[in-house]
């Protein structure tokens, strides 16, 4: 299954993705086969439902945030390139430093981009801010009333 799927990916596409994301050829084909196996609708894009079908994600407390991170703003579908672009955030940095032939623009797995990605996971409405109120509320709510209480002082 995997090998057949990979043939559907054209060489130039692979090259393009390789350039953009820094994935290796084999990684790309492999991820492509994964992509196609996730793509139940067989239309070359993944929908939220496709992601939600991954059983492990259903039990991941952050599953939905991750899924959301795959979708560009206002869109319901993600194609393979977008998929790879998101995944590229998770490539280790070291590899990058070895290959100097990467594009001049900042690679997706740079520290900044990683942070940005993480930030976006919090920044749900994508206004590029985690507001002070949010933060305060978070801090207030995070179990403080539990953690700062001693049981027998009750």
């Amino acid at each position, binding site marked *: *299954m995997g090998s057949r799927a990979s043939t559907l990916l054209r060489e130039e596409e692979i090259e393009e993705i390789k350039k953009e994301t820094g994935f290796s050829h084999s990684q790309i084909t492999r991820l492509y086969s994964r992509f196609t196996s996730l793509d139940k609708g067989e239309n070359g894009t993944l929908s939220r439902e496709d992601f939600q079908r991954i059983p492990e994600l259903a039990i991941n*407390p952050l599953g939905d945030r991750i899924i*959301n991170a795959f979708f560009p703003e206002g869109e319901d579908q993600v194609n393979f390139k977008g998929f790879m672009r998101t*995944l590229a955030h998770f490539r280790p940095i070291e*590899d990058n430093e070895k290959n100097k032939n990467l594009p001049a623009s900042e690679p997706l797995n740079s520290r900044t981009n990683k942070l940005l990605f993480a930030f976006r996971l919090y920044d749900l409405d994508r206004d590029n801010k985690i507001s002070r109120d*949010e933060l305060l509320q978070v801090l207030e709510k*995070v*179990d403080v*009333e539990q953690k700062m209480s001693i*049981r027998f002082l009750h």
Partner: protein
Amino acid sequence: MSSGMKMLLLGVTLLLLRAAGADLSGSAAPHPGPVLSSPSAPPLGPPPGAPGVALSRSAVEEEQEAEEHHGGGYRVVQWEWSYVQTPYIIAIWLLVASVAKIFHFSQRFTTVVPESCMLILLGLVLGGIVLIASKKQLYQLDPSLFFLFLLPTIVGDAGYFMPARLFFDNLGSILTYAVVGTLWNAFCTGFSLYAAKLLGVIERVQAELMDFLLFGALISAVDPVAVLAVFEEVHVNEMLFIIVFGESLVNDAVTVLYKVYISFVEVGPGNVQTADYFKGVSFLIVSIGGTLVGLVFAVILGFITRFTKKVRIIEPLFVFLMVYLAYLTAELFSLSAILMTFCGIGANKYVEANISQKSRTTVKYTMKTLASIAETIIFIFLGISAVDKSKWAWDTGLVSCTLVFIFVFRAVVVGQTWVLNRFRLVPLDKIDQVVMSYGGLRGAVAFALVVLLDGEQVKAKDYFVATTIVVVFFTVMFQFQGLTIKPLVKWLKVPRSTNRKPTINEEIHERAFDHILTAVEDIAGLQGYHHWRDWEQFDKNYLSKLLLRKSVYRKSELWEAYQKINIRDAISVIDQGGNVLTSARLSLPSMASRASFPEVTNVTNYRRENGSGVCLDLQVIDNVPGSKVEEDMETHHVLAGNLYKPRKRYQSHYSRHFMPLGEKERQDREVFQRNMRSRMETFKSTRHKRHKKERSLKKPVVVPVEPEEDKADHSDPEKEEDVGITFVARKAETPKQRPKSPAALDVCQSPPPHTPSPPAADSHLPWKGSVGAPPPCVSVEATKIIPVDLQQAWNQSISSLESISSPPAPAEPVHPRVSALSRLGGPRPLSYTGPTAGGSPSAGPPLPQASFSFPERKKKQQVEEEEEEEEPGASQEMQPLMSPLRLPGSPPPAPPPAPPPGSGRRRNPCVYLRSLVTTPPGGSSEPHSHRPTQL
């Protein structure tokens, strides 16, 4: 050192008793170490020099028997030293080594000196003393002893506990290193040494090319014993460990090469024909043959354990015998015996599923003990043999050349990593490679092989022995690897487990990132190789059917279905949410929960109102979009509150001294605790709601616990049978076991004066130790029993239970006390007992009473029912039985305000849970209560 004292005392007593007290002085006086008194003792009994090579037992014993009839006349007390000598010395050795280990593990110098070094040093010291005392080295590492007894225990242990998944995931790399790398190593070392000889660097050694090749073969194999010993202490990351360790196991091919060379040497280099060189390829056959033998025995073992239900006691015996037989069989056909590790790897899953919990524990501990013994003996032997000068001859050129070549070629071998990295999903980086090359430890296998050499044919044997000893020492201990690898690892910052306590902030975020990573991995499908999936299919379709006990297998299937349904259900819920929400309104269906219902504190309440039958507890599903703020808060809340680690794929560590507490298990535990906690929360808030209804207090106790107990008991066939093993103990034990949960729960509110002691089997379970006491309401059994893959289902049932038992709790926030309670998990019972113990004197008694009728019944049932099946009916009738029993006798819990919800509601949960448990998988009710234990 107390052993020393004892030994001395004993010796002195015996000597005093002895009628003919001739050479007393010789025996008792000058022993610095305990062991030494033994070898020097012989003057008393048999003529000196009687014991030949230690441990070649039969010979020694025969001699001893012959000598037994020495002094005429009848003596009541005799000095039977020669009779007990060998085992006695071994026992003392082990004792000393073990005592040393105690010190070793408890003291600082552990951090500097690896254990194997310590053992070798100990051996050196002992050997030196023996040598000085008797002028002659009595004890030698006997190759046959090594290969027939010591090695199999170590290798068997390693194989059985090998994290199979990790091993197979890295199989490619491991094989490459083991086969290509080691062969390369062997040839290069051999040829290079020969070249050095030709160049005149090595002067005194008289050897041909063939001899050097032979030596190269035996010296180039990385040794599993040494690797295990050192790497484990260093705590490198799992992948590195599995690769080096796997390599050391699999590279037994070298022994084959070694055998081939030996045969070459035997016929003489001149007579070797070209065709014979090709026979050298036979190492492939030998390796594969060894693997096959291992697998065949694995299948047989799995098959046998299918039918051991009636003979639980000998289950472990089967395991040991089959593993050992696999080893011997492989040896018999001169196949690669080490490769029978595959026997352990292959059989593990099925055996674990088939045999009872107790047998499992027995197997684990026995294997560990045996391996530890064997290892100790080997290292001490190594030390002792090194002292014996007569056995070896020194050639500086050979030694230094060998050391250099070994190190260089090892590094070169590791250089092949860059080829491998092209195929690996997770490439090995430079640091890994350095550690790998550094970790090429030689050890006892090489030593045993070199001792095996025939001095007649290999003239340079003595030189080779010396070199091997030096190499082993050098790699294992002296400044080189054993001692330096720790600093090196530290220096290179090889990722390893840290012990620093993170701040809360760090913790939360780390967890968040862990979850993120797991999620992304899931999306990318990283860990599933396709072939692995195929294998799992095959395993499920054929092997499991063949090798797993029917009950286990069938049930697991049903449970899988159940789980699947649940997941689908969850997904559909999410889907609904997903459909409702546009991307602009990103909400987290699985997260928004408490926060999104400001007036309803407990999610479960919401669920209850909703009446959704099956519901994933795992982060509460609801599809009402919460505001951004709330969601954000919720994320943190979920993260902080549900501090459980993201699932890891495999249990990945192998340790000689500690039972691996698998990731899975740990996570299960965490999930479970979390569940219990949330349950507690619900429960507590319930209590706060209803202060007035004090009287019905006992009920709530029953409610949450009962189903759980039910489940635990029904679900695990093994467990029941386990009880069966302790024939006599059973009666006493079961009642105790029974009340455990209720009592434990009681602890949360009013600890009874005595906490029921957990069954013996539990007390030493690994996870128990690390957590401290189990969380209050957690039935210890339950955690253990629930199979990993069913955890989810389990959670669900709990959560639904929760949802029912808790009345809608209005805006009142979770009570601090409650949460603190639940948070404290372990220590709670203890701390709690203090203030309240006096308060509820009667808390204890009713419980056992209530439970007493139950075991009886259960027992009967067990006797009657072959299939370990308890019809749900039985439990159902138990239910009412128990509740009334408790109600009257239950005292109000001492300290906290008396709680709970009305009794009418109370019964529901049980029933509900049951229906929940039974219905989903398609109406087949009973299988559900029998949850398979398939860990």
